């Protein structure tokens, strides 16, 4: 390196290599910011499209009446399927979480968590094939089969979510219960579950938001239905929103598209409200737990 003569009049801004490095860093920063902007913009465009196209279809008749006019039966059908699915998945999910947090040793914990993660990562169409083989093949499509399929999708989400909050329950509470001679099952029912309830509900609501829009399994196990009225009989195929949107989207019929946008708006609104609500609750209960 040559000795550079000190020049008191030189500006105090970086020059040469440093300047190049700083510019590059600035560019990288703007790139990262741009990426975030793009993602939010895509979300905005999708929701905007659904809202604008869907709003014109929306009316009281649309929400309550049957097929040619509205999507009433499909709304009820989706609600029923998701309700039954959650009634199946939530108890099992919470019990799995309890097993993981209260009983399982290290090895069992790793294995069951791995199982849950694999189940969570499984393409939903495969779960559809499975349920088709188990409950539909040689019989008939049914809302019950759809509910079981959605329950399998919800199970790992509820179990993992609940397990995370159960781990947050302070060990001192368990020790306090033990010290008072309280038996394990009473501790679990009276102490641990109540204090983790908020988190369990959050996980369940998130799972419901996911299940409500799940389409692939329903196409295989609950797609041939009469969309004019809602029978409430879970033993036969019942109308539901996701399959309806899918089928309308496959026909090139502008009127059908309008109805699909309307149904899409109902579904997206439900999902956004539930998942945002669950997130808000999650943030609150987390603050409460950690304080």
């Amino acid at each position: 390196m040559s000795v550079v003569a000190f020049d008191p009049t030189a500006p105090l801004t970086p020059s040469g290599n440093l300047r190049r490095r700083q510019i590059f860093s600035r560019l990288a920063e703007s790139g990262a910011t741009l990426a975030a902007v793009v993602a939010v913009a895509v979300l905005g465009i999708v929701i905007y499209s659904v809202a604008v196209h869907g709003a014109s279809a929306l009316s009281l008749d649309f929400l309550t009446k049957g097929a040619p006019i509205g999507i009433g039966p499909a709304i009820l059908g989706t609600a029923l399927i998701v309700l039954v699915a959650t009634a199946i998945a939530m108890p099992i999910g919470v019990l799995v979480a309890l097993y993981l947090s209260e009983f399982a040793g290290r090895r069992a914990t790793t294995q069951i968590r791995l199982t849950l993660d694999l189940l969570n990562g499984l393409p939903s169409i495969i779960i559809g094939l499975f349920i088709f083989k188990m409950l539909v093949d040689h019989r008939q499509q049914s809302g019950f089969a759809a509910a079981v399929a959605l329950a399998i999708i919800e199970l790992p989400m509820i179990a993992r979510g609940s397990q995370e909050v159960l781990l947050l329950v302070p060990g001192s509470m368990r020790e306090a219960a033990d010290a008072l001679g309280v038996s394990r099952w009473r501790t679990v029912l009276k102490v641990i579950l109540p204090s983790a309830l908020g988190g369990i509900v959050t996980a369940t609501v998130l799972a419901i938001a996911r299940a409500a829009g799940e389409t692939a399994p329903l196409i295989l196990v609950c797609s041939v239905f009469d969309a004019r009225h809602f029978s409430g009989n879970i033993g036969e195929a019942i109308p539901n929103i996701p399959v309806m949107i899918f089928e309308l989207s496959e026909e090139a019929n502008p009127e059908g598209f309008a109805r699909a946008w309307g149904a899409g708006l109902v579904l997206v609104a439900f999902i956004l409200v539930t998942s945002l609500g669950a997130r808000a609750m999650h943030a609150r209960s987390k603050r409460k737990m950690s304080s």
Partner: protein
Amino acid sequence: MSASPAALRDPRAARRRDRRKRADRIGDRLLYGVCLAAALLAAAVIVAIGYQVIHGAGPAISKFGLGFLVDTNWQPNFGEFGAGSLLFGTAVSSFMALLLGAPIAIAIGLYLSLLAPAGVRGVVAPLVELLAAIPSVILGFWGILVLAPFVHEKIEPWLHDTLGFIPLFGPPQTTGSSIFTAGLILTIMVIPIVASISRDLFLAVPRDVQDGAGALGATRWEVVRGVVLPSTASGVVAASLLGLGRALGEAIAVTQVIGAGSSIKASLFETGDTLAARIANQFPGALTELHKASLFYLGAILLVIGLLSNLFAQWIGRRFGYAGKVAR
């Protein structure tokens, strides 16, 4: 619990205590048993899924064997089935999604963990995650009516004009349904998954190491390049694999925009099909047992690929010590 000497001597109280003890013993056993049963059920489900899907594929497996994987013929009317072109379509669309999505998602992760002010982060992070909450059927419907026309009229001609010398960017077809459009939709699905995992990874990089690099005169990019990315590389790879798994298995949105083509072409702007999309598209209308079995065979292939990519992601995560972060 009061245990005064008088109460201890009282036979009725003693009986009560015994009853309670017995109830506690039974309750403990019962709770343990029920919890264990639930955990075993979860494990049994995944085994049953594997068994049933492979069992359903039985007729097709015995008829076509492993040649199914390379055979590109798919003609239900003639009883000829092969997964070749579908494997091709799955690979191309998923890798395109990963190639486009992973860098964007990692950049978002960096923005959310290192750049964004706390207030902005609190808004943008949930919004990015909401992108994952949009049902695929709606994303696909939007893809048909909004994205595909735009891609067909603007992006495809432009790419063909500027990069047409590469066979990937052939002449645009009559509609916007193409592997390219499917790849874009999958990109949108991959981004939130990879972004939220990599953000958590970046947040876990110790602050003082980054500050140390900064104190040595590193610019922000150099801190990322020299400290943040190297220490989280394995986790980022695992996150990308999970994103890839999502893209591979997506059925609905892809079947809506990919155009259900059945041949292998170099151009991304041609129609194509993927394993999952073919199942969603043809299963409801499948009449012959062989057709159904072949669709189950596709499912079995998908299952194996999905499980492998997922296990590989878990293994990388665990091997390099990010298990807790990657396993969501």
